[in-house]
C-alpha cells in the first residue's frame, strides 16, 4: 500500500450542492493513480505561519475527508459543514490552496458478480459515490441514501428523509429487510451516522450478509502514529483498538464492537 504523502494543491473548481454541502476539486494525475474507493485525505486550508498576521490564526488540525470522485486525477472532496474545520474548508474557492495528507486508509474491498446494496446517511454519501463507479459494471448495485432533510439528499436509487421532504419519510434502514429479501442482496457497503451503521449491521448479521462499514473518528495525525482515532475491532471476547486512519476506515461490520463504541 502506498504511504500517505503531504501535498499542497490548488483548488481547480468549487461546486455548491446544497446549503451545507459543497465539492472541492483538485487535479493531479499521480495522486489520482494512487487512490482507491473508501480511502480519504486529511485536508486543510493552507495555513500561513506569518510573522505578523492581522490576527493570530491558530493552525488547526487537518480533517479527514473521503475521496468522493477521482477521474484520472480529477479528485473531488464532497464536504458537509459541521464545525470549525469543515467551515474553514467551506470558505475556500477555486485558486486557493489545499494541504493534503493521503491517500490514507485501507479502502473498500472491491467485488464482482454480486448483488450489492449501498447504504449511506448524510455525509456518508461521498465515499460510496466513488465506490459505485468501480462497482456498477461488474455488479448489480442498489443504493439507499437517507438524511435529515432534503438538503442532505443526493442522487441514488432510494431516498429517505426524516422530515419527508424528499423521497420516503423515515430512516434509510426502515425498509432494509424487505430490500435485502426482494433484491437478494449478498454484499453491503455502508457509511453514515453511528445509529444507521449499527442498525444496518444488526440486519446484515441477521441475514448473514457480507457487510463493510466505513467508520468516522476524530483524528490528529491521519497516518497511524498518534493512536487517537481507534475503534474496537474483533470478536466479543478478543478485540483491540484499531486505527480508523490506518487499519480502517473500512471494517467488516460484524467485527466492529458496536456494543462498546
Amino acid at each position, binding site marked *: 500500500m502506498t504511504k500517505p504523502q503531504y501535498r499542497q494543491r490548488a483548488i481547480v473548481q468549487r461546486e455548491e450542492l446544497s446549503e451545507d454541502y459543497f465539492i472541492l476539486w483538485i487535479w493531479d494525475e499521480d495522486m489520482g493513480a494512487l487512490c482507491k474507493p473508501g480511502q480519504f485525505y486529511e485536508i486543510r486550508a493552507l495555513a500561513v505561519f506569518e510573522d505578523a498576521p492581522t490576527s493570530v490564526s*491558530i493552525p488547526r488540525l487537518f480533517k479527514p475527508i473521503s475521496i468522493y470522485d477521482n477521474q484520472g486525477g480529477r479528485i473531488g472532496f464532497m464536504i458537509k459543514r459541521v464545525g470549525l474545520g469543515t467551515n474553514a474548508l467551506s470558505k475556500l474557492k477555486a485558486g486557493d490552496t489545499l494541504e493534503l495528507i493521503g491517500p490514507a486508509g485501507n479502502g473498500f474491498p472491491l467485488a464482482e458478480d454480486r448483488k450489492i446494496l449501498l447504504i449511506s446517511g448524510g455525509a456518508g454519501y461521498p465515499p460510496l459515490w466513488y465506490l459505485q463507479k468501480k462497482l456498477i459494471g461488474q455488479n448489480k448495485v442498489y443504493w439507499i441514501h437517507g438524511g435529515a432533510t432534503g438538503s442532505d439528499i443526493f442522487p441514488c436509487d432510494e431516498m429517505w428523509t426524516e422530515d419527508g421532504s424528499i423521497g420516503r419519510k423515515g430512516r434509510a434502514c426502515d425498509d432494509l429487510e424487505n430490500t435485502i429479501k426482494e433484491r437478494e442482496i449478498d454484499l453491503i457497503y455502508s457509511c453514515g451516522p453511528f445509529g444507521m451503521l449499527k442498525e444496518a449491521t444488526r440486519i446484515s448479521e441477521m441475514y448473514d450478509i457480507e457487510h463493510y462499514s466505513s467508520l468516522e473518528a476524530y483524528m490528529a*495525525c491521519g497516518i497511524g502514529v498518534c493512536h487517537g482515532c481507534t475503534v474496537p475491532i474483533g470478536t466479543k471476547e478478543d478485540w483491540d*483498538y484499531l486505527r480508523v486512519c490506518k487499519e480502517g476506515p473500512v471494517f467488516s461490520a460484524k467485527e466492529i464492537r458496536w456494543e462498546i*463504541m
Partner: protein
Amino acid sequence: MGNNVMKQRQDAGEQLKTSLGVLKMKTPISVSSGTFDLETLEFYDQNCLGAFVCKTITREPKKGNPPPRLYETEAGLINSIGLQNPGLDMFIKENLPRYREELSVPLIVSFSGSSTDEFCEMLEMLEAQEGIDGYEINISCPNVENEGIAFGTQADVVHNLVSRLKPLTKRELCIKLSPNVTDITEIAKAAEAGGATSLALINSLYGMAVDHQTGMSRIKMGVGGYTGMGIKPVALALTYKTAQVVDIPIVAMGGIYDWKDALEFIWAGASAIALGTAHFVNPLAAPEVMMGLGDYLLNNNKSMNDIKGACRFS
C-alpha cells in the same frame, strides 16, 4: 540553490550540533514520544532530526483508553491515548528491526513500567538489543492511572528508580518529567542524583474540555493530557527553572511549533528540543525548524552553546 546557500547550510550543520549526556546530535531537533513515527518520515528527509523517540512501550501490550481520545481546543490538543502499544516483546520482534532498517538517526526507546522492578526488567531486555542509542524513561503519562504518573511525582521514588536503572546501561538515560507537580526542580534533582544523563520535559498537563451544549466530556475519560501551543509558557517556565538546578542536558518540549519557539527554549536552557503536537498542524514542522534555527545561528554568527541557557532579564 547557489553555491553560497549550499555552503551556508553546511556551516549551519556545524552550528546546529548539540549533545545530550552520551548522545551526539546532528541537530537539536528531536520528536516527542507518541506524536511521531516512521510514517511521518515520508514527508521529508529524516536527517533534519537529531534523534528519533518512539512511542512509549510497556512490558505487556496495552489496549489503551476507550475513544473518543482526542479533542482540539482553542489553543492545543487534549489526548487520552492511554499508552496503547504492542508490549515489549512485540516491540523487540517487530518494531525494532524496522527502526534499525529505516532509521539513519539515533533511536531513543521510550518505555514505562508499572514498578521499579519492571522498569529494570525492561531495560535489561532492551540492553540485549542492538541499534538502540538511548532510553526515555516515561514516568509522567497523565493518561494511565497509578502507573507512569505516580512515579513522576515523588522525588524519592524517582531517585530510587533512576539509581536502579543507571548501573544497567551505558546508553543515554533520559528521564521524562511531568509538569503536574508542585516543584519540578525536586524531581529533576532526584533524577540527576540517581544518574540520569539527561532530562526530557514536559509531558502533557492535565486538561479537559466539555461540549457546552450537552455537558458531554469531549474525551471519554474526562481528564486527559493537554499539549500544544497553549502549554508553551508553562513548558518554558519549567525548562528555565529546571535548567537552573541541574547540570545534565535538557530536551525541552511543549508547544514548540516553529524555530522561534525552539529558540525560546534554548535560551531558557535546553540542549535540544522536541516537536510533538506541531506535527499534527504542520507536517513539515521539523525541517522548517531546522532551517530556521540554522539561519538564525548563521546570521547571528552563534552556536548552540552560545545561546543555551543565556537568557537574560534586563
